[in-house]
Protein backbone atom coordinates (compact mmCIF):
# COMPACT_ATOMS: atom_id res chain seq x y z
CA UNK A 1 0.00 0.00 0.00
CA UNK A 2 1.25 3.41 -0.84
CA UNK A 3 1.94 5.45 2.19
CA UNK A 4 0.34 8.83 2.07
CA UNK A 5 2.21 10.25 5.04
CA UNK A 6 4.69 11.89 2.66
CA UNK A 7 1.82 13.46 0.79
CA UNK A 8 0.26 14.74 3.99
CA UNK A 9 3.54 16.27 5.13
CA UNK A 10 4.04 17.81 1.70
CA UNK A 11 0.53 19.23 1.77
CA UNK A 12 1.02 20.64 5.25
CA UNK A 13 4.29 22.32 4.25
CA UNK A 14 2.70 23.51 1.03
CA UNK A 15 -0.06 25.23 2.95
CA UNK A 16 2.04 26.47 5.85
CA UNK A 17 4.92 27.95 3.87
CA UNK A 18 2.99 30.48 1.78
CA UNK A 19 0.78 31.23 4.75
CA UNK A 20 3.87 31.98 6.85
CA UNK A 21 5.43 34.11 4.13
CA UNK A 22 2.32 36.15 3.51
CA UNK A 23 1.63 36.40 7.23
CA UNK A 24 5.15 37.67 7.88
CA UNK A 25 4.76 40.15 5.05
CA UNK A 26 1.50 41.41 6.45
CA UNK A 27 3.09 41.89 9.87
CA UNK A 28 6.27 43.57 8.70
CA UNK A 29 5.15 45.85 5.88
CA UNK A 30 3.87 49.36 6.50
CA UNK A 31 0.15 49.68 5.94
CA UNK A 32 -0.56 52.71 3.74
CA UNK A 33 -3.41 51.84 1.39
CA UNK A 34 -4.40 54.43 -1.20
CA UNK A 35 -6.96 54.62 -3.95
CA UNK A 36 -4.48 53.80 -6.64
CA UNK A 37 -2.94 50.95 -4.65
CA UNK A 38 -6.28 49.26 -4.07
CA UNK A 39 -7.21 49.20 -7.72
CA UNK A 40 -7.25 45.76 -9.34
CA UNK A 41 -4.04 45.18 -11.23
CA UNK A 42 -4.60 45.08 -14.97
CA UNK A 43 -1.13 45.37 -16.45
CA UNK A 44 -1.00 49.08 -15.85
CA UNK A 45 -4.29 49.85 -17.57
CA UNK A 46 -6.98 51.72 -15.69
CA UNK A 47 -9.72 49.14 -15.06
CA UNK A 48 -13.08 49.89 -16.65
CA UNK A 49 -16.40 48.55 -15.43
CA UNK A 50 -17.06 45.40 -13.46
CA UNK A 51 -14.95 42.27 -13.62
CA UNK A 52 -18.09 40.17 -13.79
CA UNK A 53 -19.28 40.59 -17.34
CA UNK A 54 -21.12 38.20 -19.56
CA UNK A 55 -18.71 36.06 -21.52
CA UNK A 56 -19.13 34.67 -24.98
CA UNK A 57 -20.88 31.29 -25.12
CA UNK A 58 -17.86 29.94 -26.96
CA UNK A 59 -15.91 29.70 -23.71
CA UNK A 60 -18.52 27.34 -22.39
CA UNK A 61 -18.21 25.00 -25.34
CA UNK A 62 -14.45 25.02 -24.95
CA UNK A 63 -14.90 24.08 -21.33
CA UNK A 64 -17.32 21.32 -22.24
CA UNK A 65 -15.11 19.86 -24.94
CA UNK A 66 -12.31 20.00 -22.39
CA UNK A 67 -14.39 18.04 -19.89
CA UNK A 68 -15.19 15.41 -22.50
CA UNK A 69 -11.55 14.84 -23.31
CA UNK A 70 -10.58 15.06 -19.67
CA UNK A 71 -12.88 12.16 -18.93
CA UNK A 72 -11.42 10.34 -21.90
CA UNK A 73 -7.96 10.72 -20.35
CA UNK A 74 -9.29 9.18 -17.17
CA UNK A 75 -10.37 6.13 -19.14
CA UNK A 76 -7.09 6.00 -21.05
CA UNK A 77 -4.94 5.87 -17.96
CA UNK A 78 -5.90 2.46 -16.53
CA UNK A 79 -5.91 1.10 -20.06
CA UNK A 80 -2.36 2.29 -20.57
CA UNK A 81 -1.31 0.59 -17.33
CA UNK A 82 -2.50 -2.84 -18.41
CA UNK A 83 -2.69 -2.69 -22.17
CA UNK A 84 0.07 -5.23 -22.69
CA UNK A 85 -1.75 -7.89 -20.75
CA UNK A 86 -5.00 -7.11 -22.56
CA UNK A 87 -3.52 -7.79 -25.96
CA UNK A 88 -5.23 -7.03 -29.24
CA UNK A 89 -8.69 -7.21 -27.70
CA UNK A 90 -8.08 -4.35 -25.32
CA UNK A 91 -6.47 -2.33 -28.07
CA UNK A 92 -9.47 -2.71 -30.36
CA UNK A 93 -11.88 -1.84 -27.56
CA UNK A 94 -9.96 1.31 -26.75
CA UNK A 95 -9.80 2.27 -30.41
CA UNK A 96 -13.58 1.96 -30.64
CA UNK A 97 -13.93 4.17 -27.60
CA UNK A 98 -11.52 6.71 -29.04
CA UNK A 99 -13.08 6.45 -32.49
CA UNK A 100 -16.49 7.43 -31.14
CA UNK A 101 -14.97 10.47 -29.46
CA UNK A 102 -12.92 11.35 -32.52
CA UNK A 103 -16.17 11.49 -34.48
CA UNK A 104 -17.39 13.92 -31.83
CA UNK A 105 -14.22 15.93 -32.34
CA UNK A 106 -14.66 15.95 -36.12
CA UNK A 107 -18.22 17.11 -35.58
CA UNK A 108 -17.08 19.96 -33.34
CA UNK A 109 -14.32 20.84 -35.78
CA UNK A 110 -16.60 21.03 -38.79
CA UNK A 111 -19.10 23.03 -36.77
CA UNK A 112 -16.24 25.52 -36.32
CA UNK A 113 -16.45 25.27 -32.56
CA UNK A 114 -12.71 25.12 -32.21
CA UNK A 115 -12.06 28.29 -34.19
CA UNK A 116 -11.58 31.54 -32.36
CA UNK A 117 -14.05 34.28 -33.20
Amino acid sequence: MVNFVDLTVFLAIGILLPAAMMGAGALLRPQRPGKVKLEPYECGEIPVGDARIRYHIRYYIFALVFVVFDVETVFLYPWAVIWKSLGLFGFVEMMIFLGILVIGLIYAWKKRVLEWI
Partner: protein
Amino acid sequence: MSYLPILPEIVLTAAILFLTLVVVFYQGENRNGVMMTGTIFGLSVTLLTLAFVPPFAGYLFSGMLTLDGMAFFFRWLFPAVGLFVAFMAREFLEVKKAENPGEFYVILLLAILGMMLMASSGDLITIYLGLELTSISSYILAGYLREDPKSGEAAIKYFLMGALASGVLLFGMSLFYGLTGATNLVSISGILHQVGAPPLVLAAMVFLIIGLGFKVAAVPFHMWAPDAYEGAPTPVTAFFSVGPKAAAFAAIIRVFTDGLSSLVWEWSLAFAVLALITMTLGNLTALWQKNVKRMLAYSSIAHAGYIMVGLAAGTWQGTVAMLLYLLAYVFTNLGIFAVVTALGNREGKDELTDFTGLSQRSPYLAAALVVFFLSLIGIPFTAGFFGKFLLFGAAVQSGLVWLALVMAVNSAISVGYYYTVVRNMYLVAPKNKGALPVAGELKLVVTVALLVTLILGLFFEPVLGRLVAFTLPG
Protein backbone atom coordinates in the same frame (compact mmCIF):
# COMPACT_ATOMS: atom_id res chain seq x y z
CA MET B 1 -19.20 -15.32 -30.57
CA SER B 2 -20.72 -13.15 -27.89
CA TYR B 3 -21.15 -10.09 -30.10
CA LEU B 4 -23.69 -11.61 -32.46
CA PRO B 5 -26.71 -11.22 -30.16
CA ILE B 6 -26.11 -7.48 -29.79
CA LEU B 7 -25.58 -6.97 -33.50
CA PRO B 8 -28.72 -4.77 -33.75
CA GLU B 9 -27.25 -2.37 -31.19
CA ILE B 10 -23.92 -2.39 -33.01
CA VAL B 11 -25.67 -1.62 -36.29
CA LEU B 12 -27.55 1.24 -34.64
CA THR B 13 -24.34 2.65 -33.16
CA ALA B 14 -22.68 2.50 -36.57
CA ALA B 15 -25.67 4.30 -38.08
CA ILE B 16 -25.43 6.99 -35.39
CA LEU B 17 -21.74 7.58 -36.01
CA PHE B 18 -22.21 7.62 -39.76
CA LEU B 19 -25.10 10.08 -39.53
CA THR B 20 -23.06 12.35 -37.25
CA LEU B 21 -20.55 12.62 -40.05
CA VAL B 22 -23.28 13.11 -42.65
CA VAL B 23 -24.59 16.10 -40.68
CA VAL B 24 -21.35 17.98 -41.06
CA PHE B 25 -20.09 16.71 -44.40
CA TYR B 26 -23.29 16.76 -46.42
CA GLN B 27 -23.40 20.19 -48.00
CA GLY B 28 -26.66 20.00 -49.96
CA GLU B 29 -29.82 21.94 -49.40
CA ASN B 30 -32.15 19.19 -48.27
CA ARG B 31 -30.26 18.17 -45.14
CA ASN B 32 -33.41 17.54 -43.17
CA GLY B 33 -34.81 15.11 -45.73
CA VAL B 34 -31.49 13.32 -46.22
CA MET B 35 -31.07 12.86 -42.48
CA MET B 36 -34.61 11.58 -42.11
CA THR B 37 -34.03 9.05 -44.87
CA GLY B 38 -30.73 8.01 -43.28
CA THR B 39 -32.38 7.63 -39.87
CA ILE B 40 -35.20 5.55 -41.26
CA PHE B 41 -32.73 3.41 -43.15
CA GLY B 42 -30.59 2.93 -40.04
CA LEU B 43 -33.57 1.99 -37.89
CA SER B 44 -34.93 -0.36 -40.54
CA VAL B 45 -31.60 -2.15 -40.81
CA THR B 46 -31.53 -2.39 -37.03
CA LEU B 47 -34.98 -3.99 -37.01
CA LEU B 48 -34.02 -6.34 -39.84
CA THR B 49 -30.87 -7.38 -38.01
CA LEU B 50 -32.95 -8.00 -34.92
CA ALA B 51 -35.25 -10.22 -36.95
CA PHE B 52 -32.45 -12.25 -38.50
CA VAL B 53 -30.00 -12.59 -35.63
CA PRO B 54 -30.40 -16.11 -34.24
CA PRO B 55 -32.43 -15.97 -31.05
CA PHE B 56 -30.37 -15.89 -27.92
CA ALA B 57 -31.56 -16.05 -24.35
CA GLY B 58 -29.33 -15.57 -21.37
CA TYR B 59 -26.72 -13.30 -19.85
CA LEU B 60 -24.01 -11.60 -21.82
CA PHE B 61 -20.82 -9.71 -20.96
CA SER B 62 -20.50 -10.98 -17.40
CA GLY B 63 -24.17 -10.38 -16.68
CA MET B 64 -24.17 -6.77 -17.88
CA LEU B 65 -26.89 -7.62 -20.38
CA THR B 66 -29.89 -9.87 -19.99
CA LEU B 67 -31.31 -10.92 -23.31
CA ASP B 68 -34.67 -12.54 -22.76
CA GLY B 69 -38.15 -12.26 -24.22
CA MET B 70 -38.83 -8.95 -22.55
CA ALA B 71 -35.57 -7.50 -23.87
CA PHE B 72 -36.48 -8.71 -27.33
CA PHE B 73 -39.90 -7.08 -27.06
CA PHE B 74 -38.47 -3.70 -26.13
CA ARG B 75 -35.52 -3.88 -28.52
CA TRP B 76 -38.11 -4.30 -31.24
CA LEU B 77 -40.47 -1.65 -29.90
CA PHE B 78 -37.99 1.20 -29.47
CA PRO B 79 -36.60 1.35 -33.02
CA ALA B 80 -40.22 1.23 -34.22
CA VAL B 81 -40.94 4.25 -32.02
CA GLY B 82 -37.91 5.92 -33.57
CA LEU B 83 -39.27 5.32 -37.06
CA PHE B 84 -42.56 6.97 -36.16
CA VAL B 85 -40.90 9.97 -34.53
CA ALA B 86 -38.46 10.46 -37.42
CA PHE B 87 -41.36 10.51 -39.86
CA MET B 88 -43.17 13.03 -37.70
CA ALA B 89 -40.15 15.28 -37.24
CA ARG B 90 -39.20 16.27 -40.79
CA GLU B 91 -42.05 18.59 -41.64
CA PHE B 92 -42.20 19.93 -38.11
CA LEU B 93 -38.53 20.93 -38.11
CA GLU B 94 -39.05 22.61 -41.46
CA VAL B 95 -42.14 24.54 -40.42
CA LYS B 96 -40.61 25.70 -37.15
CA LYS B 97 -37.35 26.61 -38.90
CA ALA B 98 -35.23 24.65 -36.44
CA GLU B 99 -31.64 25.76 -36.65
CA ASN B 100 -29.91 22.40 -36.84
CA PRO B 101 -32.43 19.95 -38.24
CA GLY B 102 -29.81 17.28 -38.94
CA GLU B 103 -28.62 16.68 -35.39
CA PHE B 104 -32.18 16.09 -34.22
CA TYR B 105 -32.11 12.64 -35.76
CA VAL B 106 -28.70 11.76 -34.36
CA ILE B 107 -29.79 12.64 -30.85
CA LEU B 108 -33.05 10.77 -31.32
CA LEU B 109 -31.14 7.65 -32.34
CA LEU B 110 -28.83 7.97 -29.35
CA ALA B 111 -31.87 8.15 -27.08
CA ILE B 112 -33.25 5.01 -28.69
CA LEU B 113 -29.96 3.19 -28.22
CA GLY B 114 -30.04 4.15 -24.55
CA MET B 115 -33.58 2.85 -24.24
CA MET B 116 -32.65 -0.46 -25.85
CA LEU B 117 -29.77 -0.77 -23.41
CA MET B 118 -32.03 -0.10 -20.44
CA ALA B 119 -34.49 -2.77 -21.48
CA SER B 120 -31.83 -5.42 -21.93
CA SER B 121 -29.59 -4.68 -18.98
CA GLY B 122 -28.88 -7.11 -16.20
CA ASP B 123 -26.87 -4.80 -14.01
CA LEU B 124 -27.54 -1.57 -12.16
CA ILE B 125 -24.62 0.06 -13.97
CA THR B 126 -25.95 -0.64 -17.46
CA ILE B 127 -29.42 0.45 -16.40
CA TYR B 128 -28.03 3.72 -15.14
CA LEU B 129 -25.90 4.36 -18.22
CA GLY B 130 -28.78 3.57 -20.55
CA LEU B 131 -30.99 5.86 -18.51
CA GLU B 132 -28.47 8.69 -18.68
CA LEU B 133 -27.96 8.26 -22.41
CA THR B 134 -31.73 8.44 -22.88
CA SER B 135 -32.20 11.31 -20.44
CA ILE B 136 -29.40 13.54 -21.73
CA SER B 137 -30.65 13.06 -25.29
CA SER B 138 -34.18 13.85 -24.10
CA TYR B 139 -33.14 17.11 -22.42
CA ILE B 140 -31.50 18.23 -25.65
CA LEU B 141 -34.52 17.26 -27.72
CA ALA B 142 -36.86 19.12 -25.36
CA GLY B 143 -34.95 22.36 -25.90
CA TYR B 144 -34.43 21.84 -29.58
CA LEU B 145 -36.37 24.92 -30.75
CA ARG B 146 -33.96 27.54 -29.51
CA GLU B 147 -36.03 30.49 -30.67
CA ASP B 148 -39.01 29.30 -28.66
CA PRO B 149 -38.80 30.24 -24.96
CA LYS B 150 -41.32 27.52 -24.09
CA SER B 151 -38.99 24.93 -25.53
CA GLY B 152 -36.19 26.26 -23.35
CA GLU B 153 -38.45 26.18 -20.31
CA ALA B 154 -39.34 22.58 -21.08
CA ALA B 155 -35.70 21.63 -21.38
CA ILE B 156 -34.59 23.31 -18.17
CA LYS B 157 -37.47 21.90 -16.11
CA TYR B 158 -36.99 18.45 -17.52
CA PHE B 159 -33.26 18.68 -16.96
CA LEU B 160 -33.42 19.85 -13.35
CA MET B 161 -36.04 17.29 -12.35
CA GLY B 162 -34.33 14.58 -14.35
CA ALA B 163 -30.96 15.31 -12.77
CA LEU B 164 -32.53 15.20 -9.31
CA ALA B 165 -34.21 11.91 -10.15
CA SER B 166 -30.95 10.46 -11.44
CA GLY B 167 -29.26 11.50 -8.21
CA VAL B 168 -31.92 9.85 -6.08
CA LEU B 169 -31.80 6.73 -8.21
CA LEU B 170 -28.02 6.55 -8.03
CA PHE B 171 -28.15 6.97 -4.26
CA GLY B 172 -30.53 4.04 -4.02
CA MET B 173 -28.31 1.96 -6.28
CA SER B 174 -25.24 2.79 -4.20
CA LEU B 175 -27.09 1.65 -1.08
CA PHE B 176 -27.84 -1.65 -2.75
CA TYR B 177 -24.21 -2.01 -3.68
CA GLY B 178 -23.17 -1.28 -0.13
CA LEU B 179 -25.67 -3.73 1.31
CA THR B 180 -25.14 -6.60 -1.09
CA GLY B 181 -21.70 -5.97 -2.50
CA ALA B 182 -23.08 -6.49 -6.00
CA THR B 183 -24.52 -4.45 -8.82
CA ASN B 184 -25.68 -7.42 -10.82
CA LEU B 185 -29.43 -7.88 -10.51
CA VAL B 186 -29.23 -11.66 -10.26
CA SER B 187 -26.61 -11.49 -7.52
CA ILE B 188 -28.57 -8.82 -5.67
CA SER B 189 -31.67 -10.98 -5.88
CA GLY B 190 -29.77 -13.97 -4.48
CA ILE B 191 -28.35 -12.01 -1.56
CA LEU B 192 -31.65 -10.33 -0.75
CA HIS B 193 -33.34 -13.71 -0.57
CA GLN B 194 -30.93 -14.55 2.24
CA VAL B 195 -30.99 -11.32 4.21
CA GLY B 196 -34.72 -10.63 4.00
CA ALA B 197 -35.88 -7.05 4.27
CA PRO B 198 -33.93 -5.00 6.81
CA PRO B 199 -34.96 -1.33 7.06
CA LEU B 200 -32.09 0.02 4.98
CA VAL B 201 -32.94 -2.29 2.09
CA LEU B 202 -36.46 -0.91 2.16
CA ALA B 203 -35.10 2.66 2.26
CA ALA B 204 -32.90 1.90 -0.75
CA MET B 205 -35.92 0.43 -2.52
CA VAL B 206 -37.87 3.62 -1.84
CA PHE B 207 -35.07 5.64 -3.45
CA LEU B 208 -35.25 3.44 -6.53
CA ILE B 209 -39.03 3.83 -6.69
CA ILE B 210 -38.74 7.62 -6.39
CA GLY B 211 -35.98 7.86 -8.99
CA LEU B 212 -37.74 5.69 -11.54
CA GLY B 213 -41.09 7.22 -10.58
CA PHE B 214 -39.77 10.58 -11.78
CA LYS B 215 -38.82 9.05 -15.09
CA VAL B 216 -42.27 7.55 -15.73
CA ALA B 217 -43.94 10.69 -14.28
CA ALA B 218 -45.85 8.92 -11.53
CA VAL B 219 -47.89 11.35 -9.52
CA PRO B 220 -46.02 12.83 -6.65
CA PHE B 221 -43.05 13.06 -9.04
CA HIS B 222 -44.86 14.24 -12.15
CA MET B 223 -44.59 18.02 -11.83
CA TRP B 224 -42.06 18.36 -14.63
CA ALA B 225 -44.14 16.46 -17.17
CA PRO B 226 -46.89 18.93 -18.17
CA ASP B 227 -44.45 21.79 -18.74
CA ALA B 228 -41.90 19.61 -20.50
CA TYR B 229 -44.56 18.04 -22.71
CA GLU B 230 -46.17 21.35 -23.55
CA GLY B 231 -42.99 23.21 -24.37
CA ALA B 232 -41.09 20.49 -26.20
CA PRO B 233 -41.40 20.25 -29.99
CA THR B 234 -44.49 18.16 -30.75
CA PRO B 235 -42.70 15.13 -32.25
CA VAL B 236 -40.46 15.17 -29.18
CA THR B 237 -43.52 15.27 -26.94
CA ALA B 238 -44.77 12.23 -28.81
CA PHE B 239 -41.43 10.59 -28.18
CA PHE B 240 -41.41 11.49 -24.46
CA SER B 241 -44.89 10.17 -23.91
CA VAL B 242 -43.97 6.74 -25.23
CA GLY B 243 -40.20 6.26 -25.52
CA PRO B 244 -38.42 7.18 -22.30
CA LYS B 245 -41.58 6.30 -20.41
CA ALA B 246 -41.70 2.76 -21.78
CA ALA B 247 -37.94 2.45 -21.25
CA ALA B 248 -38.31 3.51 -17.64
CA PHE B 249 -41.03 0.89 -17.22
CA ALA B 250 -38.68 -1.66 -18.75
CA ALA B 251 -36.04 -0.64 -16.21
CA ILE B 252 -38.61 -0.88 -13.41
CA ILE B 253 -39.57 -4.39 -14.47
CA ARG B 254 -35.89 -5.32 -14.65
CA VAL B 255 -34.95 -3.89 -11.28
CA PHE B 256 -37.99 -4.98 -9.34
CA THR B 257 -38.88 -8.34 -10.81
CA ASP B 258 -35.32 -9.46 -11.53
CA GLY B 259 -33.40 -7.82 -8.72
CA LEU B 260 -35.82 -7.26 -5.86
CA SER B 261 -37.99 -10.30 -6.34
CA SER B 262 -37.81 -11.13 -2.65
CA LEU B 263 -39.39 -7.80 -1.74
CA VAL B 264 -42.37 -8.24 -4.04
CA TRP B 265 -44.90 -7.68 -1.27
CA GLU B 266 -43.35 -4.33 -0.30
CA TRP B 267 -42.90 -2.87 -3.77
CA SER B 268 -46.19 -4.07 -5.17
CA LEU B 269 -47.91 -2.27 -2.31
CA ALA B 270 -45.95 0.91 -3.05
CA PHE B 271 -46.83 0.70 -6.73
CA ALA B 272 -50.49 0.05 -5.91
CA VAL B 273 -50.63 3.33 -3.98
CA LEU B 274 -48.71 5.16 -6.71
CA ALA B 275 -50.96 3.71 -9.41
CA LEU B 276 -54.06 4.84 -7.51
CA ILE B 277 -53.02 8.46 -7.09
CA THR B 278 -51.30 8.67 -10.47
CA MET B 279 -54.28 7.66 -12.54
CA THR B 280 -56.80 9.58 -10.49
CA LEU B 281 -54.86 12.84 -10.39
CA GLY B 282 -53.74 12.55 -14.00
CA ASN B 283 -57.28 12.07 -15.26
CA LEU B 284 -58.86 14.71 -13.06
CA THR B 285 -56.27 17.36 -13.96
CA ALA B 286 -56.54 16.55 -17.66
CA LEU B 287 -60.18 17.67 -17.56
CA TRP B 288 -59.20 21.31 -17.04
CA GLN B 289 -56.55 21.69 -19.73
CA LYS B 290 -56.83 24.12 -22.63
CA ASN B 291 -53.66 23.11 -24.49
CA VAL B 292 -53.82 19.78 -26.24
CA LYS B 293 -50.21 18.85 -25.48
CA ARG B 294 -50.76 19.61 -21.81
CA MET B 295 -53.94 17.58 -21.82
CA LEU B 296 -52.13 14.67 -23.43
CA ALA B 297 -49.35 15.07 -20.85
CA TYR B 298 -51.86 14.49 -18.07
CA SER B 299 -53.41 11.71 -20.08
CA SER B 300 -50.01 10.08 -20.36
CA ILE B 301 -49.52 10.48 -16.60
CA ALA B 302 -52.83 8.71 -16.10
CA HIS B 303 -51.71 5.92 -18.42
CA ALA B 304 -48.52 5.50 -16.41
CA GLY B 305 -50.88 4.94 -13.51
CA TYR B 306 -52.76 2.21 -15.36
CA ILE B 307 -49.52 0.52 -16.34
CA MET B 308 -48.37 0.54 -12.73
CA VAL B 309 -51.39 -1.60 -11.87
CA GLY B 310 -49.44 -4.42 -13.50
CA LEU B 311 -46.60 -3.80 -11.06
CA ALA B 312 -49.04 -3.59 -8.19
CA ALA B 313 -50.24 -7.05 -9.12
CA GLY B 314 -46.66 -8.18 -8.63
CA THR B 315 -47.14 -11.30 -10.69
CA TRP B 316 -46.01 -12.62 -14.01
CA GLN B 317 -49.50 -11.99 -15.39
CA GLY B 318 -49.10 -8.37 -14.35
CA THR B 319 -45.88 -8.07 -16.33
CA VAL B 320 -47.44 -9.55 -19.46
CA ALA B 321 -50.38 -7.18 -19.11
CA MET B 322 -48.00 -4.26 -18.76
CA LEU B 323 -46.15 -5.19 -21.93
CA LEU B 324 -49.34 -5.60 -23.93
CA TYR B 325 -50.69 -2.35 -22.55
CA LEU B 326 -47.47 -0.55 -23.41
CA LEU B 327 -47.64 -1.91 -26.95
CA ALA B 328 -51.18 -0.62 -27.41
CA TYR B 329 -50.49 2.68 -25.66
CA VAL B 330 -47.29 3.39 -27.60
CA PHE B 331 -48.81 3.05 -31.05
CA THR B 332 -52.09 4.74 -30.13
CA ASN B 333 -50.33 7.70 -28.58
CA LEU B 334 -47.94 8.05 -31.51
CA GLY B 335 -50.97 8.18 -33.79
CA ILE B 336 -52.58 10.90 -31.67
CA PHE B 337 -49.42 12.97 -31.69
CA ALA B 338 -49.09 12.56 -35.45
CA VAL B 339 -52.51 14.19 -35.78
CA VAL B 340 -51.53 16.91 -33.30
CA THR B 341 -48.31 17.52 -35.25
CA ALA B 342 -50.19 17.73 -38.55
CA LEU B 343 -52.56 20.28 -37.07
CA GLY B 344 -49.85 22.17 -35.19
CA ASN B 345 -47.74 22.51 -38.32
CA ARG B 346 -50.54 24.59 -39.82
CA GLU B 347 -52.18 26.23 -36.80
CA GLY B 348 -49.15 26.54 -34.59
CA LYS B 349 -50.77 26.95 -31.19
CA ASP B 350 -51.79 23.42 -30.15
CA GLU B 351 -54.90 24.73 -28.39
CA LEU B 352 -57.95 22.53 -28.02
CA THR B 353 -59.89 25.10 -30.06
CA ASP B 354 -57.62 24.36 -33.04
CA PHE B 355 -59.50 21.10 -33.43
CA THR B 356 -62.77 22.80 -34.25
CA GLY B 357 -64.27 21.45 -37.43
CA LEU B 358 -61.44 19.04 -38.11
CA SER B 359 -64.02 16.54 -39.32
CA GLN B 360 -64.66 18.85 -42.28
CA ARG B 361 -61.09 19.96 -42.83
CA SER B 362 -59.59 16.49 -42.72
CA PRO B 363 -62.18 13.76 -42.19
CA TYR B 364 -59.56 11.03 -42.17
CA LEU B 365 -57.45 12.53 -39.37
CA ALA B 366 -60.56 13.29 -37.33
CA ALA B 367 -61.87 9.75 -37.66
CA ALA B 368 -58.44 8.31 -36.85
CA LEU B 369 -58.22 10.48 -33.76
CA VAL B 370 -61.58 9.19 -32.57
CA VAL B 371 -60.34 5.61 -32.92
CA PHE B 372 -57.15 6.45 -31.01
CA PHE B 373 -59.15 8.04 -28.21
CA LEU B 374 -61.41 5.00 -28.05
CA SER B 375 -58.29 2.88 -27.71
CA LEU B 376 -56.93 5.03 -24.90
CA ILE B 377 -60.28 4.86 -23.09
CA GLY B 378 -60.28 1.10 -23.56
CA ILE B 379 -63.31 0.47 -25.74
CA PRO B 380 -63.58 -3.10 -27.14
CA PHE B 381 -62.15 -3.86 -30.60
CA THR B 382 -59.32 -1.40 -30.13
CA ALA B 383 -55.83 -2.18 -28.89
CA GLY B 384 -56.31 -0.40 -25.59
CA PHE B 385 -59.18 -2.62 -24.55
CA PHE B 386 -57.19 -5.81 -24.23
CA GLY B 387 -54.38 -4.04 -22.44
CA LYS B 388 -56.80 -2.71 -19.86
CA PHE B 389 -58.62 -6.01 -19.72
CA LEU B 390 -55.43 -7.92 -18.93
CA LEU B 391 -54.32 -5.35 -16.35
CA PHE B 392 -57.78 -5.57 -14.78
CA GLY B 393 -57.52 -9.36 -14.70
CA ALA B 394 -54.02 -9.32 -13.22
CA ALA B 395 -55.15 -6.92 -10.50
CA VAL B 396 -58.19 -9.02 -9.62
CA GLN B 397 -56.10 -12.18 -9.57
CA SER B 398 -53.77 -10.58 -7.03
CA GLY B 399 -56.71 -9.60 -4.87
CA LEU B 400 -56.59 -5.92 -5.80
CA VAL B 401 -60.26 -5.63 -6.71
CA TRP B 402 -60.37 -2.08 -5.35
CA LEU B 403 -57.55 -1.02 -7.67
CA ALA B 404 -59.27 -2.63 -10.65
CA LEU B 405 -62.45 -0.73 -9.81
CA VAL B 406 -60.56 2.55 -9.50
CA MET B 407 -59.09 1.84 -12.90
CA ALA B 408 -62.53 1.35 -14.40
CA VAL B 409 -63.83 4.57 -12.83
CA ASN B 410 -60.79 6.41 -14.15
CA SER B 411 -61.37 5.15 -17.67
CA ALA B 412 -64.84 6.62 -17.40
CA ILE B 413 -63.45 9.95 -16.21
CA SER B 414 -61.02 10.05 -19.13
CA VAL B 415 -63.95 10.02 -21.57
CA GLY B 416 -64.60 13.58 -20.42
CA TYR B 417 -61.49 15.20 -21.82
CA TYR B 418 -61.22 13.07 -24.92
CA TYR B 419 -64.82 13.99 -25.66
CA THR B 420 -63.97 17.71 -25.58
CA VAL B 421 -61.68 17.17 -28.55
CA VAL B 422 -64.18 14.98 -30.38
CA ARG B 423 -66.93 17.53 -29.85
CA ASN B 424 -64.69 20.29 -31.17
CA MET B 425 -63.92 18.22 -34.23
CA TYR B 426 -67.44 17.16 -35.10
CA LEU B 427 -69.92 19.57 -33.55
CA VAL B 428 -68.21 22.97 -33.50
CA ALA B 429 -67.92 25.12 -36.60
CA PRO B 430 -64.30 25.49 -37.76
CA LYS B 431 -62.30 28.62 -36.97
CA ASN B 432 -60.30 28.26 -40.15
CA LYS B 433 -62.13 26.87 -43.13
CA GLY B 434 -60.57 24.91 -45.93
CA ALA B 435 -58.97 21.50 -46.13
CA LEU B 436 -55.99 20.88 -43.87
CA PRO B 437 -52.86 20.12 -45.89
CA VAL B 438 -51.14 17.10 -44.36
CA ALA B 439 -47.66 15.89 -45.25
CA GLY B 440 -47.40 12.42 -46.74
CA GLU B 441 -45.24 11.04 -43.93
CA LEU B 442 -47.74 12.13 -41.31
CA LYS B 443 -50.56 10.41 -43.17
CA LEU B 444 -48.42 7.29 -43.30
CA VAL B 445 -47.72 7.44 -39.57
CA VAL B 446 -51.40 7.92 -38.76
CA THR B 447 -52.37 5.05 -41.05
CA VAL B 448 -49.82 2.63 -39.60
CA ALA B 449 -50.77 3.58 -36.05
CA LEU B 450 -54.42 3.16 -36.95
CA LEU B 451 -53.78 -0.26 -38.45
CA VAL B 452 -51.80 -1.39 -35.41
CA THR B 453 -54.50 -0.11 -33.07
CA LEU B 454 -57.26 -1.91 -34.96
CA ILE B 455 -55.38 -5.13 -35.73
CA LEU B 456 -54.19 -5.41 -32.16
CA GLY B 457 -57.77 -4.83 -31.07
CA LEU B 458 -59.24 -7.47 -33.32
CA PHE B 459 -56.54 -10.12 -33.32
CA PHE B 460 -54.72 -9.72 -30.07
CA GLU B 461 -54.43 -13.41 -29.34
CA PRO B 462 -51.36 -14.21 -31.47
CA VAL B 463 -49.58 -11.18 -30.01
CA LEU B 464 -50.53 -12.14 -26.50
CA GLY B 465 -49.44 -15.70 -27.21
CA ARG B 466 -46.02 -14.52 -28.30
CA LEU B 467 -45.70 -12.20 -25.32
CA VAL B 468 -46.64 -15.02 -22.97
CA ALA B 469 -44.09 -17.28 -24.64
CA PHE B 470 -41.50 -14.49 -24.27
CA THR B 471 -41.99 -13.81 -20.65
CA LEU B 472 -42.84 -17.23 -19.22
CA PRO B 473 -40.94 -17.45 -15.97
CA GLY B 474 -38.14 -19.93 -15.71
